[in-house]
């Protein structure tokens, strides 16, 4: 303080020299106008960035919708069949028993349907109806065994070529389809089979349920493993871990695992679960394990942030009346952090649901014609199915791929929406 007093004369001399700023001069006004223009430009750039990013998203979603919605419909042909005359070796009683499918298959229903197609549409009839049209006919028969005794007109799925020609044209079958349409034998309907069936080599018969069920089974395994482990380690690291080299190591591992390319987890699954532990290839169990390892760090990080966000005053309050540290955590911290943890979990699960590359590594890219039976039976998952279908020969798969993408996106958007809802609902209550 004394030093300051000593300098004072010097300061006063220097200070007096400045003239007050005149804000009204032309130069100053121009300058201010330029500054405001720069401000507007900058702001516009920001807005443009937001709009552009949102536009990309909108474009992506609209494109997928436009391409994929057609995948949910199928073209059907009205096929007259004279069951009485066809000589189908099956009785109505058999159709009501458990072995109905086998009975129909061995009774030569396929041949009957093919013959009916040739009879109805001419020599190219078999190319017009789907290879598996007879299965649809069989289902009708099971529903209504009475048909066996007479004639019926059954709407069967058209072949991929007809379907494509009917929907988009520009195929060799266009003329034929126009003819059929003129005869009123062509209808379009919602393809329920797409929602209930499994993979197939025939685009008119593929379904998403097999892959969806595979995804669900995989996700169940992932959730059961990643959630408890993730939450417990988040709690440990945030509430108890002493600061030492070990916890640093755990922290580094977790942060690193959260960013390790997913394909490396695939390599891990391949080397550890398949090669070392001899677990079954292509199984949802292994997929779930692999994805759980990938999801766990995401949950840990979200969990730690949520735990950190619980105000220390709550812990103090509980400790202050004599709660032990485990009681503090289980009575107060975890319940309060739960929304945050759940949000992180959902986001991690959504990421796992969309993940493809690691599943390719552990053999979940096989062709499997039926929905998986359990955790150890072979399965695919939705994104893998998308990848596989995008590579199919037949043009009919293009719209099916997009349709599968729509199913996948619906799930993901729902999950993300739920996470956002949770986050907004529980954001900062204290």
């Amino acid at each position: 303080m004394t030093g300051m007093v000593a300098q004072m004369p010097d300061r006063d001399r220097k200070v007096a020299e400045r003239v007050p700023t005149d804000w009204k001069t032309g130069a100053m006004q121009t300058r201010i106008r330029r500054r405001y223009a720069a401000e507007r430009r900058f702001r516009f750039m920001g807005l443009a960035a937001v709009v552009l990013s949102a536009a990309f998203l909108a474009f992506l979603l609209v494109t997928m919708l436009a391409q994929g919605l057609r995948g949910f419909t199928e073209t059907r042909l009205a096929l007259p069949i004279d069951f009485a005359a066809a000589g189908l070796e099956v009785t109505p009683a058999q159709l009501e028993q458990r072995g109905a499918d086998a009975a129909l298959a061995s009774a030569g229903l396929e041949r009957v349907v093919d013959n009916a197609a040739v009879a109805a549409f001419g020599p190219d009839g078999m190319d017009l109806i789907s290879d598996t049209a007879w299965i649809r006919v069989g289902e009708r028969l099971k529903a209504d065994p009475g048909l066996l005794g007479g004639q019926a007109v059954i709407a069967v799925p058209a072949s991929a070529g007809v379907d494509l020609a009917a929907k988009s044209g520009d195929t060799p079958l266009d003329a034929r389809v126009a003819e059929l349409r003129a005869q009123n034998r062509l209808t379009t309907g919602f393809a329920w089979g797409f929602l209930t069936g499994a993979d197939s080599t025939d685009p008119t018969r593929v379904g998403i349920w097999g892959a969806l069920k595979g995804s669900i089974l995989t996700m169940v395994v992932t959730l059961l493993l990643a959630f408890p482990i993730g939450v417990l380690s988040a709690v440990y690291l945030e509430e108890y871990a002493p600061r030492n080299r070990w916890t640093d190591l755990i922290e580094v591992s977790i942060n690193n695992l959260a960013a390790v390319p997913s394909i490396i987890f695939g390599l891990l699954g391949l080397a550890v679960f398949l090669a070392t532990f001899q677990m079954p290839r292509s199984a949802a169990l292994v997929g779930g394990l692999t994805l759980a390892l990938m999801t766990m760090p995401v949950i840990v990080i979200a969990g730690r942030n949520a735990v950190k966000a619980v105000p220390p005053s709550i812990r103090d309050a509980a400790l202050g009346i004599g709660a032990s540290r485990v009681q503090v955590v289980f009575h107060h911290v975890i319940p309060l952090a739960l929304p945050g943890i759940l949000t992180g979990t959902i986001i991690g699960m959504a990421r796992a649901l969309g993940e493809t590359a690691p599943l390719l590594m552990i053999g979940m890219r096989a062709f499997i014609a039926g929905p998986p039976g359990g955790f150890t039976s072979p399965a695919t998952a939705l994104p893998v199915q998308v990848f596989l279908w995008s590579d199919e020969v037949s043009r009919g798969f293009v719209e099916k791929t997009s349709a599968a993408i729509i199913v996948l996106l619906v799930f993901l958007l729902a999950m993300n929406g739920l996470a956002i809802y949770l986050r907004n609902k529980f954001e900062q209550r204290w």
Partner: protein
Amino acid sequence: MSTLALLILLIGLGIVAWVSARLRLSRLAGEERTHSLPLYHGWYVALWTAVPPILFLILWVNITPALVSYAVIDTPVAARILPSEPLERSALLAEARALAKGQIEAPFNADARLLAPAYAETQSRYDLGATALALILAFAGFAYAFTRVRPDFRARTRVERIVMAALLGASLVAILTTVGIVASLLFESFRFFSMVNPLDFLFGTRWSPQATVLPGEDPGFGAVPLFWGTIFIGAIIAMLVAIPLGLMSAVYLTQYARPAVRRWMKPILEILAGVPTVVYGYFAALTVAPVIRDAAAAIGIANASSESALAAGLVMGIMIIPFVSSMADDSIAAVPGSMRDGSLAMGATSSETIRRVLIPAALPGVVGGVLLAVSRAIGETMIVVMAAGLAANLTANPFASVTTVTTQIVQLLTGDQEFDSAKTLAAFALGLVLFVVTLLLNIVALRVVKRYREAYE
């Protein structure tokens, strides 16, 4: 008794133990205040009753099959029919066991039928032993813990110690995973490097892997084109898209947008990161790539590939936008409001405040975010698999096709080649490189972010 039934029985015993411990405590304590709540005494005894036998069972389930098999091998029937070749022998044993358990109806090898009864008999003997041992363990544990239940017994401390052990165990899973990754990559990579010189691999410029490596010939395992492709797509093109868009979006949303707009737009942009990469890949391959190729052709670039680095990088950049923007958002938000107030109070406009004060102050955080985004981009697989192609070109032409490390891993491991060949093993070596690079990127990024956070906390 089957393992499952035994497990249920043990859990039942645990419940009985839980209840009886509480009863004993209330009888002993009467009106006296106990050190721990009855609940903890219950848990203490229940855990002692159920956990040791369950651990034993887990161990048992893992070793009995072997013990049973050895016992069966020693039977006279086995000595007569078992083949000496180990693989055949084991197949036969497995079938005999499956027959004995009724899992299959017909074996591959008819001899298995002869062995099945021996299996069934031995197995039931061992199962009986396991049940007895488990029950003895349960009762011993129960007796030990039950006698310690007294009002002044510190049951809570004991139980909490177990909880702590469980917590610690959970957090070790992360380390195990890391060790697993490193081990699985290192082992296979060593095998690869015993076939291919690591220097050729890291610095060679020709990538054309052959299944067998002939001596004295370029093996075509020069990974530089892959590294370049990865950097070109992930760190250059994608970032050229993601950094400006992400940063400016973050700036707009945090500094300009009304709270309602921010509340809606932020999650909407985050959806970009939630869309599965396989969808982006499909989108890139079918929608973006043809447009880019046509555009290139229109401006006179001959030979534009339909699988271009640009298509993959562009789409990847879009995917990465939310990473950059949310990290930038966080870092800008972490700059104390007083900085902003300080600048505004000097008469600075918002954009001057943002450009001259907020962004420089948030820069380390933003840089850390970008590094994390880069590590995410170079690890991305499906977009490149579907949109950028497989040609290992060493080119800076964005319209040409390039390939990346991750794509090659997928190709090498799912393509048509034999296992154990240099080609397959190369995938693990590439994985190792990828792992090391992301590890370094992350460590650097986290350091940067952390140091910067500390500066304000």
